[in-house]
């Protein structure tokens, strides 16, 4: 029985060509990172200084100043209301858009294209940028904030609801069409019940996100607690800033807990 020598069998995970490709890819990635680091202008002494600055800032923030608590709590309520109103209105506005943006319910190609265009344009602009725009249109205040959050939410809600509509079971739809029900009634009885769980889950999720987004709206003058925060930072009232930050954290945690509880309830 003859045995082949070890040297006659060779095996390599990659061919030479593959190896070169992998090497080149890694080279390109490394070059991109080096270029990125080179091109941004970091002032290194400020970075080395950071721990001392953190200690200093912390010292100025403690103890938090609660003398303005009434005003801060009121701003929190305003923030909450911005998020709630905007989410509520956005849900209703997103329903028809989801309907025309879903392939299986849209009346024709044009409406499908229109629906998707609305969703993409809403989603590609950040809430803060919408807010800047609406502050310019409506002036600073709560209204600009509400509309900004609404505009951003429509894209989010419409996209997810549209996907839920596309994933429904076709068979009940067919059955109801066979009974001679009109299109509107088929939607009401065969499609709405199927997307209801997603509808609630997505609505609650968006409310949760909107609560967090509405805390920063004030930075561009669109109402909510951000207005007071900006004012406190501008006047270097660090102890007040500390109270506001703690209040925001408390609100967001409470909101998150409420959202989690609601999700459990509806699903």
């Amino acid at each position, binding site marked *: 029985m003859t045995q082949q020598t070890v040297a006659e069998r060779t095996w390599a995970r990659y061919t030479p060509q593959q190896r070169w490709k992998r090497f080149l890819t890694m080279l390109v990635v490394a070059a991109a990172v080096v270029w990125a680091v080179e091109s941004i202008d970091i002032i290194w002494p400020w970075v080395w200084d950071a721990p001392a600055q953190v200690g200093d800032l912390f010292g100025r923030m403690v103890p938090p100043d609660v003398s303005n608590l009434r005003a801060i709590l009121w701003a929190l309520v305003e923030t909450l209301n911005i998020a709630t109103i905007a989410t509520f209105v956005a849900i209703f506005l997103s329903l028809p858009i989801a309907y025309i943006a879903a392939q299986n319910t849209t009346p024709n190609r044009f409406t499908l294209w229109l629906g998707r265009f609305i969703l993409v344009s809403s989603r590609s602009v950040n809430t803060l940028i919408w807010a800047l725009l609406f502050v310019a249109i409506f002036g600073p205040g709560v209204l600009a904030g509400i509309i900004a959050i609404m505009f951003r939410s429509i894209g989010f809600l419409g996209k997810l609801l549209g996907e839920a509509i596309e994933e429904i079971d076709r068979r009940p739809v*067919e059955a109801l*069409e066979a009974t001679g029900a009109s299109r509107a009634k088929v939607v009401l009885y*065969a499609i709405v019940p199927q997307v209801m769980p997603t509808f609630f889950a997505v609505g609650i999720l968006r409310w949760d996100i909107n609560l967090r987004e509405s805390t920063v709206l004030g930075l561009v003058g669109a109402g909510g607690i951000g207005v007071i925060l900006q004012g406190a930072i501008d006047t270097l009232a660090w102890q007040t800033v500390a109270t506001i930050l703690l209040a925001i954290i408390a609100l967001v945690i409470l909101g998150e807990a409420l959202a989690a509880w609601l999700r459990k309830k509806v699903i």
Partner: protein
Amino acid sequence: MLRIQNLIKRYGHGEPVLRGLDLDVPGESVVSIIGASGAGKSTLLRCINRLVEPTEGSIELNGLELTHLKREELRKARRRIGMIFQGFNLVDRLTVMENVQCGRLGYIPYWRAALRKYPAEDIERAYHLMERVGIAHYANKRADALSGGERQRVGVVRALMQQPEILLADEPTASLDPVSSRQIMELLQTLSQELSLPVLINIHNVAEAREYTQRIVGMRFGKLIFDGVPADLDQEAMDAVYSGTPGEARQQAESGPAHSPAVVS
């Protein structure tokens, strides 16, 4: 009376699925349609209520030509045709009563449907029919909480709520266990007599077809090649209907539900 003449259905530019099919269903008879998978049974039923658009031919229900109806007329005509599905096709998240009332959607105004304010006589009729098939105590349960046999009863009641002039059943027992399967077939048979309703049943289980129907129609490659009483369906006729299909599938179709639920599709 249902009269189908020279029915042709072609999907796209492919080979026709139905090739000039003629079928008369007079009065209150229960007719089984048997045939191998792909023979065109489902397409035939769906052409009748135009869930599938027929390519050519004529379908007449009690004097009304169905093939040329426009949208609104078609909607009105569909109210007169009840359909029962293999997968039941209920709305899972709605209650049994809501599912049953779906059969009335073509008749009641939109606000009644939206608010679930069904007319009193519809509710009365629903309870009457649900009691008849033994599901009245489930009225407030969600449809997905029921077993297969119970769900198919909901499907049957939904179709009957339409006060149809004909009942189309597309493999109504293929998703059911043998016992439920026989119960549903028995139900369709007796309901047909009670309500003097013609019933057209696509079925894979030839034993059940023989037992519960007065007339059997055999389809093969889009044409009727057998039409007679169960006694006429001898071995030769069975061969003609099923020849060319795997022997196993045929054996399963022949043997009674005691051995297998005969899911051949």
